[in-house]
């Protein structure tokens, strides 16, 4: 995707990593960073949210809660969902991709057609349908997101494994009679690891946006501390009188996705890889 070579990729990835690190620090240090309790009304502003001004840095919401504190605490739930869902996505995607690429033949045909089938569903619509069938909760959202977003990973990993399979050291190991599972764990996986890391970063963008979209539609995680997507959805009614209620959580989401996009595309340019799949 990115031309201009390694140097630019290195810079991009570095910036992304710094941005992501800052986010993780904010999430971990939320209790110390947030000036107020995110769940309690701190300003006497019922029905009339305060615009951003000291002492309320990013204003208060319709219930008088401090928006800055809520965004800082929201980083916890948003990051937890995004990273866990990405891990699940990678788990499914890598398993499918490695099996299809390594075993080939009918295994490949079946798994790739399955991938095509899942890819035919608009991710958000399939997620909506799954979310309607599953009981609401954190686990359901994680599984739903992973179930609709593993396809890109599977395709890319498959392509990588297929070309690896033809290499001499894999062929040699196979001839020596190394059992498939061990061969995959010892020789195939370590070699696709760079691809998995790139796909992990790019999948994170996807899961953050998907989680935000689901939260916006009211299908997100039902917890007391709302995720950023939920904050936008809750403030929708007030967007004319209190636009800051939706602007800042949206910026937080965009910041997160930008960070992981920088990492993903930066690494992609750095390693000179191109990613298949979506």
């Amino acid at each position, binding site marked *: *995707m*990115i*031309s*201009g070579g390694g140097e*630019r990729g290195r810079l991009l990835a570095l910036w992304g990593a710094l941005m992501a690190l800052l986010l993780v620090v904010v999430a971990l240090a939320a209790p110390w960073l947030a000036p107020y309790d995110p769940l309690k009304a701190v300003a006497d502003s019922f029905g009339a949210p305060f615009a951003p001004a000291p002492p309320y840095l990013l204003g208060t919401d319709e219930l008088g809660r401090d928006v800055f504190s809520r965004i800082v605490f929201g980083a916890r739930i948003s990051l937890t969902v995004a990273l866990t869902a990405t891990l699940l996505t990678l788990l499914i995607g890598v398993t499918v991709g490695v099996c299809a690429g390594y075993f080939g033949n009918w295994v490949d045909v079946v798994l790739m*057609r*399955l991938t*095509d*089938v*899942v*890819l*035919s*569903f*608009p*991710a*958000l*619509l*399939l997620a*909506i*349908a*799954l*979310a*309607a*069938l599953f009981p609401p909760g954190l686990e359901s959202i994680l599984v739903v997101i992973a179930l609709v977003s593993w396809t890109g990973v599977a395709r890319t990993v498959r392509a990588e494994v297929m070309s690896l399979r033809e290499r001499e050291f894999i062929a040699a190991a196979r001839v020596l009679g190394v059992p498939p599972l061990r061969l995959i764990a010892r020789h195939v996986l370590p070699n696709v690891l760079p691809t998995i890391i790139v796909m992990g970063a790019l999948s994170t*963008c996807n899961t953050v*946006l998907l989680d*935000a*979209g689901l939260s*916006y*539609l*009211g*299908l997100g995680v039902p917890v007391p501390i709302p995720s950023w*997507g939920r904050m*936008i959805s809750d403030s*929708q009614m007030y*967007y*004319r009188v209190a*636009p800051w209620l*939706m*602007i800042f*959580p*949206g910026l937080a*989401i*965009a910041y997160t*996705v*930008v960070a992981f*996009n*920088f990492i993903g*595309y930066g690494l992609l340019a750095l390693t000179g890889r191109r990613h298949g799949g*979506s």
Partner: protein
Amino acid sequence: MVRHGTAMIAFLQRLGWSLVILIGVTFLTFVLAFVIPSDPARTVAGPKADPQTLASIRHELGLDQPVPLQYAWYLERLVRGDFGRSYVTGQSVLTAILERLPATAYLALTSLAAATFLGIGLGCCTAVRQGSAIDVAALLGSLVGLSIPIFWLGLVLLYVFAYRLRLLPLGGYGGPHVILPASALALGNAAYYARLVHTNLIAVLDADYIRTARAKGLPRWRIYGKHALRNALIPVVTLLGLDFAALMSGVVLTETVFNWPGLGRLAVDAVFNQDIPMIMGTVLFSALLVVVVNMLVDILYLIIDPRMRYARG
């Protein structure tokens, strides 16, 4: 003659795989609607259905029969255009979908046209000026454009252009009402296409036949317009097909923000009403749409790129 034959085989192959995927799509929706729920009759009829209705539905849909037979009947109902009934309104799901389809097509196609136009324009500008500040700005801009949540962009556009500046209408359907939702939907795609055209064009500009064209002394605009761009656009066409599914996901969010009376709104409303037949119907319908669009794009691809006739034969 030979060339013609391989093209035909490639065409039939694509058609065959599309058919397999089509069947896979129906099977997956069947599993979601009838195999996973503990009482499919209840999901079909709704939580308030009385025992008699449930019993008659079980019999009617053959839910007491073995699963493969149920699937066969499910397929047969789909072929007849029977996607089930909404248990909120009692309306046929397919009728409801077809009523909403024009609105979605209007929004999606407007935004697709805008995104393609913008993306190709930006991609060309940045590829020609490779390495300049514009190029770097475009790279960062496209990555940021890809990162903005569509629904948030929609709300911000509504706030700025409809509420503060009062340039465009707040909500509603038709005419100028399409501008804001289509823009919200187009931005991410435009950023993506710009990147893609950029990368492809740079690769193509390095190719031998472009050097030949330059050596022949052809004017720059002819080299870019006729030789380079045409080849750089071929991969974009396939992406238009692949991205159709992503476009539909964006449509769901945009329609919700702007209260646009399309398919996406239908699905979201169905979720709030727990109207499972309607949800499954819209999901199945949009997946079928994606498969058909992809098949058409594949065929188009065979027509515009002569190399494909040899490659896949």
